């Protein structure tokens, strides 16, 4: 049994290809339905599909076969051949699958490093798969861990701090100057497409009133209606400038429409509070000298881009910290995964019972002389063996490669509150699942393990693990530090 992921992302494919393979929410049911005949091969599966990536995570019996089936299914569903040809795809197995999902959830694999939307999308993808009954104990744990990693990355590091989008940067600067945007009027000058994006961000912040001024009043009215604001004629611009605390300019004027002298007059008529001017037009609508005025903060496109750049750099500096969190959580997940083998479960179960017996014996020591105590110990040992014989036999019969088998082992761990950690480290009789990097010791070489677990006579499954997963050479080179220049969030 192996974990695998295969997919297409912004790192390997163009936006057009990504659009063509994106599995939309309304198509999910059909996709999971088509997977049902392959349940014996693909035991658990989850599809993560956004505008920047479409990835299929699976817990499968045979990696090569499952990989082929999944590619064909996605291609059939979407009527393309991008996955089958392998031209734009990548795939990982074992540990690398876990690592990849954790990098995705923490935003390291996103177009804009550290963006937070992807974490919600990862959670949602799992919920959809779960509703379709396509998941089991393994992917549940994997996606829960991914959500945990995403949260840790954002709370323990600054990977998600500071906006990297120019439009957001304007709002962020205004929020650092004015205490609450909802208290103040916002003025948008110009109704062109460039201004709409920034204006929409300010409208989302819920200003007291949003006013749109444009040379063509009808266009101002249309934008105001869209943003839930009010329109004013071009001639009333000075009055609107006086009232507004945030001014966004985005007209197509070839010369500045606001110069320092005009703004100085406006400031004289305004209150004592600061004003924020965001000039996202090219060429500039606001003369740079306006920025020299007291209590006026001018941010043009260059300034906003420089702010976004500073934040991008800071996020990049946080990547090693996030990678550290990921390594830690990958190890934790793999340790849990290793514990799903029957050998560590049996050892932990025996350890748990032995612990109880030892405690009881310690309490009774004073009531017995040394000869009787030895007899009591012998009796306890025999009783434990008898009591544990049947559960041990049952556990040995668990098919650890099946979804139900894994559920059983998880249930036993929870029922007896087994502490698996001391037994995971030994990796006795490793699952050979392709997840872990190390293979457990051979029981023949460690007779004490065989005796302890009662498994000495039967060889432990000893499939060769896939040591590091494999990256197909059909995709473009992945590089988490790739320069991200997109202005809009979303993955």
């Amino acid at each position, binding site marked *: 049994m192996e974990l695998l992921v295969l997919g297409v992302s912004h790192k390997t494919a163009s936006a057009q290809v990504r659009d063509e393979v994106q599995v939309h929410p309304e198509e999910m049911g059909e996709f999971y339905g088509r997977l049902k005949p392959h349940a014996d091969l693909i035991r658990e599966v989850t599809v993560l599909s956004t505008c920047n990536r479409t990835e299929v995570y699976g817990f499968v019996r045979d990696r090569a076969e499952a990989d082929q089936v999944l590619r064909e299914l996605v291609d059939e569903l979407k009527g393309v051949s991008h996955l089958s040809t392998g031209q734009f795809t990548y795939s990982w197995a074992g540990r690398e699958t876990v690592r990849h999902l954790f990098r995705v959830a923490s935003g390291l694999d996103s177009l804009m490093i550290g963006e937070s939307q992807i974490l919600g999308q990862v959670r949602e993808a799992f919920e959809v798969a779960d509703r379709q009954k396509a998941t089991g104990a393994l992917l549940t744990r994997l996606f829960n861990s991914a959500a945990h990693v995403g949260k840790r990355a954002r*709370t323990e590091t600054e990977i998600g*701090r*500071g906006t990297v989008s120019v439009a957001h940067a304007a709002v*962020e*600067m205004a*929020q*650092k*100057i*004015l*205490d609450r945007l909802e208290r103040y009027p916002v003025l948008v000058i110009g109704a062109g497409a460039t201004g709409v994006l920034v204006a929409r961000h300010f409208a989302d912040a819920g200003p007291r009133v949003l006013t749109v001024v444009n040379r063509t009043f009808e266009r101002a009215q249309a934008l105001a209606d869209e943003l839930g604001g009010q329109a004013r004629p071009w001639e009333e611009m000075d009055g609107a400038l006086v009232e507004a605390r945030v001014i966004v300019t985005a007209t197509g004027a070839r010369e500045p429409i606001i110069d320092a002298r005009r703004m100085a007059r406006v400031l004289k008529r305004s*209150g*004592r*509070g*600061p004003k924020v001017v965001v000039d996202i037009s090219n060429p500039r609508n606001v003369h740079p000298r306006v*920025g020299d005025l*007291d*209590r006026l*903060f001018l*941010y043009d496109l260059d*300034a906003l881009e*420089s*702010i976004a750049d*500073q*934040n991008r750099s800071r996020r990049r500096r946080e990547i090693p910290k996030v990678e550290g969190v990921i390594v830690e959580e990958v190890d934790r997940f793999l340790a849990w995964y290793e514990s799903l083998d029957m050998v560590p479960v049996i050892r932990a179960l025996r350890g748990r019972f032995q612990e109880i017996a030892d405690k009881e014996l310690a309490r009774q020591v004073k009531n017995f002389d040394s000869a009787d105590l030895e007899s009591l110990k012998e009796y306890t040992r025999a009783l434990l063996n008898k009591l544990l014989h049947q559960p041990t036999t049952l556990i040995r019969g668990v098919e650890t490669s099946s979804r139900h088998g894994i559920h059983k082992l998880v249930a036993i761990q929870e029922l007896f509150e087994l502490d698996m950690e001391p037994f995971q480290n030994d990796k006795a009789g490793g699952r050979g699942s392709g997840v872990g990097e190390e293979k457990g010791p051979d029981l023949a070489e460690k007779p004490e393990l065989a005796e302890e677990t009662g498994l000495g006579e039967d060889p432990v499954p000893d499939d060769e693990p896939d040591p590091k997963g494999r990256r197909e050479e059909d995709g473009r080179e992945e590089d988490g530090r790739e320069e991200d220049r997109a202005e809009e969030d979303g993955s």
Partner: protein
Amino acid sequence: MDTALQLLNVLLPLGYLLAAVAYLVVFMEAPEWARPWATRITVWVVGAHVVYLFLASLTFQHVPVANAWEGFTFIAFAMAVVYLGLEWRWKDQATGVFLLVPVLFFQILSSAFVTHTREVDEILRSPLFAVHVTSALLGYVALSVAAVYGAMYALLYRELKKHRVGLIFRRMPNLETLSRLNLGAVLLGWIALTLAILIGSLWADELASQGRLEGTFYTDPKFLLTVVLWVLYGLTLGGRYLFRWPNRQLAYLSMVAFLLMVGSSLAMTLIFPSFHQFS
């Protein structure tokens, strides 16, 4: 009672240390659940400080400001109270560490070297003196706090003008909040100074009429300095409210006035004799 005082003398710096660390954690963007703890710890320590000052007043029969070391604990207390007041009013915790560190500094100085003066001038035992000195210290401390906020405002203003989004940008509250904290501290300081001057003048008049005060208080250098500062801050507030001076001007003026206050106080103490010496 002496034992309780000694115990509190040790516990207070430890408490303020804990509070300063808590505010540092808040400054470093602590999780939401941890934030109220910084305020709670400070409130508890300030409560303990009230007990300490009350016990000291009872034990020594005067407000414990008879020497510099006693004065330092009073300054620490006043600064913590001013900060808590501003935090409560403007709901901002990000600046707590900047004020709790000086509080801790003054309290450590006091706790380490304090010797309580038992024999003091009879004037110091008057209840009016307690009100006078408390309001004067509160006033000076509030104006010092205003200077801290003024400096923070100036720093952030500069960063915003230069389009820099570094540590100062990320950690400090927004510019308007800093401006309000600055104004609030100046206002509180000015009101406290007004009270100190009024009570001091009335009380000094009464003492003079009883022949218990030598000379005239209005020629006393410390009194004159306080009045000058009071006028300066008053003008600043007038400019802010009547002539709509921008917030930045208030921030700079509060820093300049603070430097003037510290410099002239030192000069006056070293050069001129004053009747404001009682022990």
